[in-house]
């Protein structure tokens, strides 16, 4: 049975497997964290400006449509191969959904709520922290969740540009037509993606205020 062979492969090469798994998780987590750190505040800030759309939003909208592998490939001639170029590319991939959702999430807060908050004497900072962000949490988190899945998925492709990760087993498996190795890469990668989706789904529900 293929699954059994796959399992045997892991048992036979634990360092390789766990090494790849660790790289994969680290790459994904780092990219997601970086992208959130950049895109979330930017999205919130842009939402507070008067002008409805801006170049950043338009760019993010375009960025969202770009094929992941294309983005990874474009990075390679510029930055070479390895962990850091992969991190860079994956962060780029994660930026659009987080930026767009942070922006929309804040913009969707009903104007009368912001008016009431301002009229009662909240400073701009207090309005963002106490009112707009909590209300926008579900939407913002949906964006982070999407980005998380995209990053885990993209990290699989990072194998092509020397980033390491579970994709290495898949590419090796296809090159050598070694099906067990293929599964050693594919199944854990799938589980990781599903796990990330579930995790952020739960986080989203946990962090959403009761009244929403």
């Amino acid at each position, binding site marked *: 049975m293929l699954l059994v062979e796959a399992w045997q492969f892991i048992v036979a090469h634990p360092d390789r497997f766990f090494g790849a798994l660790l790289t994969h998780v680290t790459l994904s987590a780092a990219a997601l964290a970086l992208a959130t750190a950049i895109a979330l505040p930017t999205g919130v800030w842009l939402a507070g400006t008067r002008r409805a759309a801006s170049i950043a939003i338009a760019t993010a909208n375009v960025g969202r449509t770009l094929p992941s592998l294309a983005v990874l490939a474009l990075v390679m001639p510029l930055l070479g191969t390895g962990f850091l170029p992969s991190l860079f590319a994956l962060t780029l991939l994660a930026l659009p959904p987080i930026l767009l959702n942070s922006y929309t999430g804040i913009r969707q807060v009903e104007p009368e*709520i912001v008016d*009431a908050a301002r*009229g009662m004497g909240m400073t701009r900072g207090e309005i963002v922290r106490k009112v707009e962000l909590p209300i926008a949490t579900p939407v913002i988190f949906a964006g982070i969740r999407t980005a998380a899945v995209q990053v885990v998925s993209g990290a699989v492709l990072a194998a092509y540009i020397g980033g390491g990760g579970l994709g290495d087993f898949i590419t090796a498996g296809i090159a050598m037509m070694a099906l067990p190795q293929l599964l050693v890469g594919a199944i854990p990668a799938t589980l990781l993606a599903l796990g990330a989706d579930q995790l952020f789904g739960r986080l989203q529900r946990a962090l959403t205020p009761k009244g929403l």
Partner: protein
Amino acid sequence: MIDIIGLVKQFPGTARPAVDHLTLTIADGEVCVLIGPSGCGKTTTMRVINRMIEPDAGTVKVRGRDIFDIDPVSLRRSIGYVIQQVGLFPHWTIAENVATVPRLLGWKPAKIRTRTDELLTLVGMAPEIYRDRVPRELSGGQKQRVGVARALAADPPVMLMDEPFGALDPITRARLQGEFLNILRGLKKTIVFVTHDIDEAIRMGDRIAILKDGALVQYDTPERILAAPADSFVEAFVGADRALKRLSLIPVTSACEPWPGTPPPNTIAAEASLRDALARMLEADVDRLAVVDADERFVGALTLQAIRAHSADAAPVARIQRFP
């Protein structure tokens, strides 16, 4: 006391100023209603008072202090603010909503809690039931009650209310108007109340400021505006039935006369208005009514003649008790 002096505000891209050299003084503890057609500048004027809008020229002094010398955020924390769509924070419980300004001011939790319960009771919402609910679960009328409680939380001396009951159905609106007037009885607050509804203005206002095209047309008590409209615009604005509106402000007791002999067959309560009495007379096709008090005792009679005397334009209008 609120002093508005020479206020001017013109929004970019508009043909004329929204507020055009407005000067108005609101006495302490008074309910001043700003009313007028769409675009007359009533909401703009109100929003200048808490500096939600910065004017182009003019001053506003609240209790002697120029509001432009105070930091806007502190100013707003000292002024109650109620808007038509309420704007309750959906992610907070009712208690947290009411406690908004006290929390901004750094009150101690125990004091906040007592005050919140006190206010919820005041607006007719049992704290035990509603304290931990969320806005989503409330009806329109309930939301606005919470809105009023929230505005009263830090006990501000001044309150701004922008068509607070406008989004409610007529029955709820009438009920909330009455309850709010009751609440005001026990408190000394200066209220600026914006509405487009003349009946609401007459009911709620100690004085009414009628605005048109950003300028003040008439500023007086409801009775005097109804008795002597300043011009044809005001006359049309208050409505062709202003005589009836005036009658609704006068209780039966002011026109009631002693009546020797048998009381007339149809009755009217002493606390009713002359307008109700007139309606009763028309229904029953009579020209006199027996006035009875709360215990159904006969205290006098009301004649159509007396009503006519009170409704004539030349009739002196004394300020009699307000109707709840």
